Every structure is written in structure tokens, then in C-alpha cells.
């Protein structure tokens, strides 16, 4: 066990990937908390699928595989997707969840057409585009890791600098507008940060699973506290832990993929939080419920002992 941990740290390549995944988990956990509170968790899923055509166009234009180019493509496609979702749900009677589903599959369908077109035209076979989609952190090179780290630092810094504004907009947009905050600007800023987190995360965990990086740590953190700063810290910690364990465990064997392990680690943390969190956890809730019941039964018994007539009637 210890040898394994030491070997993780001594191999420079593994060390970089480990740090990249940990920071990515941290950043997405923090930004995910805001999307969680705004009840827009599944937007991450839409953004991830919508990134595909953007990534394909970026590749077609430049014919090289580069994480930062893909990031820009994914960002542009993600913003377009979000605009489409809000246009559909604003202009028609289709609800926002169905709108998300439509945009998600339509963008992904177009992306699939482009991807197969690239692959069949020959140049794409070595592009590594499909690796990008399923996420294999072990395939990352140093420049990819730098991009990941830069993105994560940006996410956390933005969350700290704009903490008060984001908090107000997440909890009470009406009040935020009332005191003169530029609400729609801030909402767009949050959206762009979420898109950045998703676009960076795809490479580590893949299109389908990247949504979990945003949702699961935030939902787990929510069980531990009622205060936003504490929740952000917990979400960041949970995200970082899952990212680190995903990267570490996947070094054990060539066939263990990073993404699923990361997501399962996050899910495990979620289940633990759901059961064992001190106040909102299921165990604590059940115990509280039981002690309340016992209390009530005791006081009812005392009452009926003091007042036999009433006790006789109630049964």
C-alpha cells in the first residue's frame, strides 16, 4: 500500500496526472455547488454532449490534437447549446428538461456525423478524438495537464473572488437584481465557468461521466452543512479526493479507466454523506425520529399516569 503510494509520487508522469485530476475535481466540485443550488445540475450533461461538434470543428480547422484548442471548441459549442436551450424553453411550451434533451441529442448527433466523417476521411484515425470522448487521463501529456491545472485555478479563483455575487444570484436572483447587481451578466459568467469545467473534465472522465464531477460532490457536500462557504469547501474536498483516487487507482493496471473510478469514488462519498452526515444524514434522521417518538411516548405515559381519566379515554 505504502510502496504503491510512494511509487505514485516518484514517477513524474503519474504525479502530474494525479495533480491534474485532483485539481480538476476540486474546481468542478466548487463550481458544481452553484449549479446544484440553482437546480441546473443536468446542464453539465447537456454541455458535455454538446461539446462534441465544437471539438470536431476545432480539429477540422487546425488538423492537430491540442487540449487548449479542443477547450475553445467545446466552450463555443457549449455556449451555443445553452442559448438554444433557453430559446426553446422561452419561445415554446416545451419545458426546459425536454429542451435540454433535444439540444443534447441534436448536438451530439451532428458531432457524431462530423466525427465519423473525419475518421472516414483518414486524417482522423490518429487524432485521438475518440480517446478524448471517453476520457483517459493516462493518455494526457504535460501540456494537457497544464491546461487542466490552469482551468481549475481559474474556477476556484472565480468562485472565491465573486463569492458574494454568486451566492446572492444562486439563492435569490430577485433580491440580487433589487440591490443593483448585474444578474444576467453574473448568470452568464457562472454558465461560462461551468462550461469551462465540463470542457476540461471531458478529457479526464469522458462525455457521459463528466456531469458527475459537477453534481455528485456538490450533492454530497450539501448533507454536511447549511452554510455555503462550508459546502463549497466540502464539495471541493470531495471532488479532489475522487479525482485523486481515480487517477491513482487507474495506474494499478492498464485496463482500469480513470473516469468510472473517479465517478464511483464520488458516488461512494455521496452515499457515505447521505447515510452518516451529522444532521441531515439518514442515520441521524432516523435516530432523531426514534428518540422523538420515545420522548413522546414517555410524556404521554406520564400524562396518563397523572390524569387517569384522560389516559383511559385516549386509547
Amino acid at each position, binding site marked *: 500500500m505504502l510502496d504503491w503510494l510512494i511509487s505514485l509520487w516518484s514517477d513524474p508522469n503519474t504525479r502530474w496526472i494525479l495533480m491534474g485530476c485532483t485539481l480538476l475535481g476540486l474546481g468542478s466540485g466548487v463550481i458544481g455547488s452553484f449549479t446544484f443550488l440553482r437546480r441546473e445540475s443536468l446542464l453539465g450533461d447537456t454541455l458535455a454532449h454538446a461539446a462534441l461538434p465544437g471539438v470536431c470543428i476545432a480539429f477540422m480547422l487546425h488538423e492537430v490534437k491540442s487540449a487548449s484548442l479542443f477547450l475553445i471548441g467545446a466552450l463555443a459549442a457549449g455556449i451555443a447549446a445553452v442559448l438554444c436551450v433557453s430559446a426553446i424553453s422561452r*419561445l415554446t411550451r416545451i419545458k426546459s428538461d425536454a429542451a435540454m434533451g433535444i439540444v443534447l441529442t441534436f448536438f451530439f448527433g451532428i458531432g457524431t456525423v462530423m466525427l465519423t466523417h473525419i475518421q472516414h476521411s483518414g486524417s482522423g484515425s490518429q487524432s485521438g478524438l475518440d480517446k478524448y470522448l471517453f476520457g483517459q487521463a493516462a493518455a494526457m501529456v504535460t501540456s494537457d495537464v497544464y491546461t487542466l491545472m490552469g482551468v481549475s485555478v481559474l474556477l476556484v479563483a472565480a468562485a472565491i473572488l465573486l463569492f458574494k455575487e454568486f451566492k446572492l444570484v444562486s439563492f435569490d436572483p430577485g433580491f440580487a437584481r433589487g440591490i443593483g447587481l448585474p444578474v444576467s451578466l453574473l448568470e452568464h459568467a457562472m454558465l461560462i465557468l461551468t462550461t469551462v469545467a465540463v470542457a476540461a473534465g471531458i478529457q479526464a472522465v469522458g462525455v457521459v461521466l463528466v456531469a458527475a464531477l459537477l453534481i455528485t460532490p456538490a450533492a454530497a457536500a450539501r448533507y454536511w452543512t447549511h452554510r455555503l462557504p462550508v459546502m463549497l469547501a466540502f464539495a471541493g474536498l470531495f471532488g479532489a479526493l475522487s479525482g485523486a483516487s481515480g487517477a491513482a487507482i487507474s495506474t494499478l493496471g492498464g485496463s482500469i479507466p480513470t473516469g468510472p473510478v473517479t465517478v464511483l469514488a464520488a458516488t461512494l462519498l455521496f452515499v457515505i454523506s447521505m447515510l452518516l452526515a451529522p444532521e441531515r444524514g439518514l442515520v441521524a434522521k432516523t435516530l432523531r425520529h426514534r428518540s422523538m417518538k420515545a420522548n413522546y411516548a414517555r410524556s404521554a405515559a406520564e400524562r396518563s399516569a397523572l390524569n387517569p381519566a384522560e389516559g383511559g379515554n385516549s386509547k
Partner: protein
Amino acid sequence: MMDFWIILTAVLVASACSILGCFLILRRMALVGDAISHAVLPGIAIAFLMSGTRDSMWMLLGATAFGLLTVFLIQTLQTSGLQSDASIGIVFTALFAVGVLLISLNAQHIDLDLDCVLFGEIAYVPWDTWTFGSTDMGPRAVWMLGITLTVILLLLGLFYKQFKICAFDPAMAAACGIPVLLFHYLLMGMVSMTAVSSFESVGAILVVGMLIIPAATAYLLTNRLGVMIGLSVAVGIISAVSGYLVSYLLDASIAGCIVSAAGILFILTLLFAPQHGVIAKFARRRSSAQTVS
């Protein structure tokens, strides 16, 4: 003949999904369909590992059970106080992760390509045939989808009224004495069955696209459920056939082209639908503004 089998498979997926999609859209559960179609992956992987073959019936049953498990878990998380979007996201990503992990750890035992899981490879459908005794009965996917579509038509035909009331007003359905939960799980069971039987032949993306896009298109065109189902199936079939033709011309993914075709039909409807379309709405607003002034 090969084109025929591929188009038939696509049409069967499109019909089954676009019928069910109407109910999902009306119950505001479009994304639960998305979740189910991803979350059946571990069921398929486990069925593969246990039976060792592509024994269709076992796979269908085992993986359908996983679809229902997904719905159950989502519901449990929701009743324990978690908001619905987060519970959908947590459950389906966790189950999909289990599936991917199972497949990559047992890659030598499971004859399942991870790329196919997402994009599907409907072009291979004609080669994967089902032999009964010693006679070749045609592609396996067509049989599985045919059985699924029959089950859907049968259940909806028998309990159309119940499904309809549950879709529009679950509270009233409960008051009428309809077992709402049972019909909910029946619907979800049908969605899982469709997802499973189309999974490896056409990929998750086509299933999700066909569940949501045709039904949403039909939703913009009519206010009557029966008409909506008919229109939805029509949109699904038109996109399946035209998507196949386009994919032939572009030399690109069939599933991707079908979904894109459906998306384009949706955009056209969004603009030009007679009552709920964007252009009609603007025209109405302008004419009412003129009457006022």
C-alpha cells in the same frame, strides 16, 4: 436486402421510442429516459458475463431490471429530500460508471465495443443474425425490437385511458383509483426494454434522440394525445429513412444522421408550426397589437 434490414431496424427503434416519448414529455420526465438508456449498461454487461453469450432473452430481462432499478433509485433519492435533477444525474452516472468499469475489466470476456455503446453501429445489424434450430431467422436486433414494439402496442392498447390520465393528471388518476405507481413503473419498464433492445445495435444516442425529439416536435403541432402519438411516430419514421439516405451520401454515422434529421424536423416545426410555432406567435402578437392601436 441489407439496406432493408438497417432501415427496418431504424424504423422499429424510431416507432417504439417516439410512442413512449410522448408520455415522457407530458410527464416532464424527458431526462429520465436519457438516464435509463445510459444506466442499463451494467445490466447488459452483467448479463454478458453471466450467460457468456448474446443470449437475447436473458439480456433483455436482466438489463430491463437495471432500468427499473434506476427509476427506483432516482425516486428513493428524491423522496429522501434530494432535488430531482441532482438525483437523476447521480444515479445514471454511477450506474454507467459501473458498466464501463465492468466492460473494461472483462474486455476479453465481453464482446462489446465501448465506442458502439455511445454511437452504436447500426450498419452491422444485418450480420448479427439469430438462428432458430438451423434456419436463419433474420437479424437479432429486428427480432428484439419487434418483440419490444409488440409489448408496447399491447400494453398501451389495453390501458390507453389509464396511461393518458396518469400522463396529464396523476393526482386525479389516483383519485379515480388507478394504481399510478404501477403504471409509472410499467411505462419505465417499457422505456428500459426499448433502451436495452436497441442499445448495442443502434447506441444510446439514437435511443435518447428518438425518445425526446419526435415527441417534442409532435407536442408543438397538436393538443390531442392520440394525434400527438401518430405525428410523433411519423416524425420518427421520416427521420429514420431520410437520415439513412443522408448517411449514405455523407459516408457518416447512421445513428448520428438520423438524430440530426430529427433535429432539423424539430427546428422546422419550431419555426413554422401553425399554432405553437415561433413565426405564428409573432404574427399573432403583431396583429393583436394592430387591433389595439
